[in-house]
């Protein structure tokens, strides 16, 4: 018997568009990372670190120029885990420069990183996040630091070795806060030529140069030992000859 041809008319489907126009039940995120509205971020009751007002003002100033470089970290219920100073700085900015704030964070949405747990259920995880976040920030390459410094300079920050005059904004302390590195590291980043590694002149390691290097190292050690202690006249005599010797040694190495 030949198979009967299907003749049932198909019904038009209903896509339930209504469901998508108001409530959001989906857990998906869209491409480009998550954001939340500033008001939606809640503080934790047992928030641990006290806030430092100067730090907040400095951060607000830097966010105004550079944007928010590190997202704020929250839990699944939008409770703050790390970034209390950043959040306070954002609130301060919104109040004092609403226009710039709107430019920078259109529609009031702040970049965040959401940690997949509920802080009330797992408070110990919150502490871990907080510590990790404060200990280990994103590492900036020398190029990035230079780029940030350039932007800050354009915005009126000055880079001088002296104490800033009143009203003047100093570059290096600002960078210290932004990237969380010591003054020395920042100076090193800014001084590298092409932003890459420090340039090391090529040295050919023959047995001879190796020995010379070792002698140099030992002599420097000796110099330090003599310098600190009360030393005998003989030792003093030797100490005086060290610079000349090192100079001669340097000449041979080259």
């Amino acid at each position, binding site marked *: 018997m030949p198979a009967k041809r299907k003749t049932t008319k*198909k019904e*038009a*489907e*209903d*896509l*339930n*568009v*209504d*469901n*998508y*126009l108001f409530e*959001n039940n*989906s857990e*998906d*995120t*869209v*491409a*480009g*990372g*998550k*954001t*939340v*509205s500033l008001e939606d971020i809640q503080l934790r009751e047992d928030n641990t670190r006290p806030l430092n007002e100067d730090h907040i003002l400095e951060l607000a100033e830097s966010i105004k120029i550079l*944007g*928010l*470089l590190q*997202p704020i970290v929250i839990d699944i219920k939008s409770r703050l885990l790390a970034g209390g100073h950043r959040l306070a700085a954002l609130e301060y900015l919104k109040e004092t420069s609403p226009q710039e704030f709107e*430019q*920078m*964070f*259109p*529609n009031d*949405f702040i*970049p965040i990183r959401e940690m997949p747990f509920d802080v009330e259920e797992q408070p110990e995880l919150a502490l871990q996040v907080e510590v990790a976040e404060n200990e280990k920030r994103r590492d900036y390459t020398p190029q990035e630091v230079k780029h940030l410094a350039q932007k800050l300079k354009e915005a009126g920050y000055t880079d001088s070795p002296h104490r800033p005059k009143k009203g003047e904004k100093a570059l290096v302390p600002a960078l210290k806060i932004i990237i969380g590195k010591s003054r020395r590291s920042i100076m090193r980043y800014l001084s590298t030529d092409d932003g890459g590694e420090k340039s090391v002149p090529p040295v050919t390691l023959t047995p001879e140069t190796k020995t010379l290097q070792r002698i140099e190292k030992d002599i420097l050690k000796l110099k330090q030992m003599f310098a600190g202690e009360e030393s005998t006249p003989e030792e003093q005599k030797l100490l005086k000859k060290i610079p000349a010797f090192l100079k001669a040694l340097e000449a041979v190495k080259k």
Partner: protein
Amino acid sequence: MSHIIGLFNQASSQAKTTLTINLCYHLAQQKKKVLAVDMDTHAWLTKQMNVSPDEFKTTIYDVLVNQEPASIFSNDYQFDFIPANKQLSTLEAVLAQENDRQFRLKKALMPFLKEYDYIMIDCPPNLGLLSVMCMVAATHVLVPIETTEKGIQGAKDFLPTFQNVRQNLNKKLKLAGVIPTKYDGRRSHHKLKLETIHKSFSKAKIPVYPAIGLYTDFENAWDEAKPLAAYNSKHIAVNSLKKIAQELVDLK
């Protein structure tokens, strides 16, 4: 205030670019200042402006990545455009580290809000960062849906994304309506899918615009890089396009 309208459906060949060009043309005919923005990595819209995409020194890519001011170009049909080229396809990787990446297009369009009545964005056929940028920048989305199962699937995938963008990135985004496209009234499959579109969207009070038919003259016009009305002003689809443009003018 100007309207920023993204034509979006993540399925490909839903007539997004064709509609963008034609609607820009009809809006311009109504004496509106119109800017078209090409956000598609294929740069179809740019190619339709009679210039090779590689001839532009700056494109939307430079605007989004280097945050340069956008260069505006004009064409023969009284509307302006910001071009794209294939470089745009590398954007996602380049911007991956930037916190404000979803907002770059919105920021870039801010200076033009005063100058233009309508900014029409031709979105790419995917759900990636470029599409999200479009929906963050837009005040409205307009969804062309081919009257086939593929078009319906595209609409199904679009809805959660729309909802998500509204929840997470752009609370003010509105769904301006859907446009059934490539409709062939002789085919029962098309009739069924058109019915699906009407049934689903009308119930949710989303406007369903007049269906745009599948006509060879769209291809002929494309061939000559013209809007349909400039190719054949008496074509039957011109009226539907005019009607849709009129609805956009009345948009709140």
